[in-house]
């Protein structure tokens, strides 16, 4: 059984249908990416998984358990962490307190301490900024904090919404290297990206979303070589 299975997912914002019945599968241990243009419905898909928006029809199964209709905090409890679009840093709290909130549901002190160390290894910058107000971090640092905070939940599935947005090329490289490291350590990742080039290099499997519909799906390497994707998303003539 796959870790995440979405079947015929339909969602609405008011009267507007944002997803017209998409299906996708995330296999255990993989990085799966969802790429597409602005407004394609990538963030909407992640929001539906996390229970942030209502689902009109279709099903979402996480490890065999249905997620539709389950409250967001219960979904976190099941093992899904979501670093949302725009990072969602609590700017009224310190970096330290933000990290703490990531492990809000956990009680295992030792495990939490170990995971903090791991986050610091991945993002040394965060350790230096612990006492600082999170709102004063640079954009890249905020992104690192958002990913680190999501890891503090020790998720089985990590949802990342455009982790490379607005970052300098070098920082983007770092972030993607870390995404691979996180995955290598055993966390399954569903990665939403506009940077199709990096996403396809990093992921095992990829889906292309266009205005609420999945139009292509294949192994990431193969998609990266397909003419359509090269033209539309990789900017190769």
């Amino acid at each position, binding site marked *: 059984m796959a870790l995440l299975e979405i079947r015929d997912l339909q969602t609405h914002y008011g009267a507007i249908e944002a997803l017209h019945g998409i299906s996708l599968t995330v296999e255990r241990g993989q990085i799966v990416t969802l790429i597409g243009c602005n407004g394609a419905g990538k963030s909407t898909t992640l929001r539906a998984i996390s229970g942030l928006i209502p689902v009109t029809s279709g099903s979402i199964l996480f490890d065999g358990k249905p997620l539709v209709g389950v409250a967001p905090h219960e979904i976190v409890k099941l093992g899904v962490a979501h670093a*949302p679009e725009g990072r*969602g840093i*609590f700017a009224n709290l310190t970096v330290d*307190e933000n990290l703490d909130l990531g492990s809000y*549901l956990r009680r295992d002190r030792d495990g939490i301490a170990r995971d903090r160390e791991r986050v610091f290894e991945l993002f040394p910058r965060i350790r230096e900024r612990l006492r600082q107000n999170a709102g004063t971090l640079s954009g890249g640092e905020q992104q690192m904090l958002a990913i680190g905070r999501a890891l503090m939940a020790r998720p089985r599935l990590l949802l990342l919404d455009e982790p490379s947005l607005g970052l300098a090329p070098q920082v983007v490289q770092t972030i993607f290297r870390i995404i691979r490291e996180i995955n290598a350590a055993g966390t399954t990742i569903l990665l939403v990206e506009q940077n199709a080039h990096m996403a396809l290099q990093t992921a095992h499997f990829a889906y292309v979303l266009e205005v609420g519909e999945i139009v292509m799906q294949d192994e990431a390497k193969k998609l990266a070589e397909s003419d359509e994707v090269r033209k539309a998303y990789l900017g190769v003539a």
Partner: protein
Amino acid sequence: MTKFLQTLMDGISIGSLYALIALGYTMVYGILRFINFAHSDIFVLGAWLSFSVALCAGWTASGAPLLFPTWLWTVLIVVSVLGPLLYVVERTALPALRSSLGPRVPHALAGGFVVTAAVWAWVLVGLVFLARATTASASFRPLTGVVILVIAMGGCGLAGYLIERLAYKPLRAAPRLNVLITAIGISLFLQNSGQLKFLFGTQPQKMPELMENKPLAVVAGVAINRVDVIGAGTAVALMFALEWLVFHTRLGRAMQAVSYNTRVASLMGIDVDRVISFTFVLGSALAAAAGFLFVMKLPGALRQPADTGWVLLGLKAFVAAVVGGIGNIRGAMLGGLFIGLLEYFGVAYLRPELRDVYVFVLLIIVLLVRPSGLLGKATVEKV
């Protein structure tokens, strides 16, 4: 000098009550971004509940405790039967119905909510009997005040819990104006139902003196009264407790997270609905404490529930929240004290008939010069 000290003391003791009420306005605003207009009525409820419980405990002219009204027992029993019933149906029949009839069958029937309310109400009833016992015993009689304070806080906390759950929660996704109008509706409902004969009635009352109000000391000609010291001490203790709760506990961290960004808070695994409920309970309990302390200090000021004097007090507490920076907990405490002092010094040294004017002029000045309040700051968000 005497006048100055006296004014200072009055200002601080009334100001700390404004602060307690302002905290409820500010906490709810901080989390839901709306002004809970029914909040000042919770303060009134706290005052009247203190009075009614005192009578039930035996602080009557004859010394015989007042009986519980029958309707109260009826409600208690109905709720106590209904709650477990709903709960059992939720657990047994609903999942089966859902799988056969599909997702239109609701997940829950609010069984947990009704059970919680019922248990809570029974605890309060138990506490009333405790108050009765302490009143009757010579050695524990001085403790009755504490028990009554706890009952008032618990009772208003329950009221806040019910109001949020029944009136505001269904409007979570509605435009803010709808919630605001609902709050005004709740406020009118509380004011008017409070006047019902089987609740508090339409007559002003006098709070029994739960403790002898003798001066503890005389400083520079000013008597420092026991009630004032205990009252201000309680208010300050509650504020310290709140400060600790919000800034040093897991639950407080969750409250801060929800107040900054509800959506992201839920992604951290925080049960947002529970945090909101808790915020209402907490704010209502603090307002109830203010109500209790108010009638302890001014036993003759227990005006009938819909009296405009109450509204004015609530309004000043609201001004305190705005002046301190709405949404800011420390701001509300500071604002309350500030408003209390301003009011009393204005009355003592300027013109007494302009008592209410000072407060509202301050509001206007703050809104013009520093609209985010003394401690409020405009939030900066990085994109």
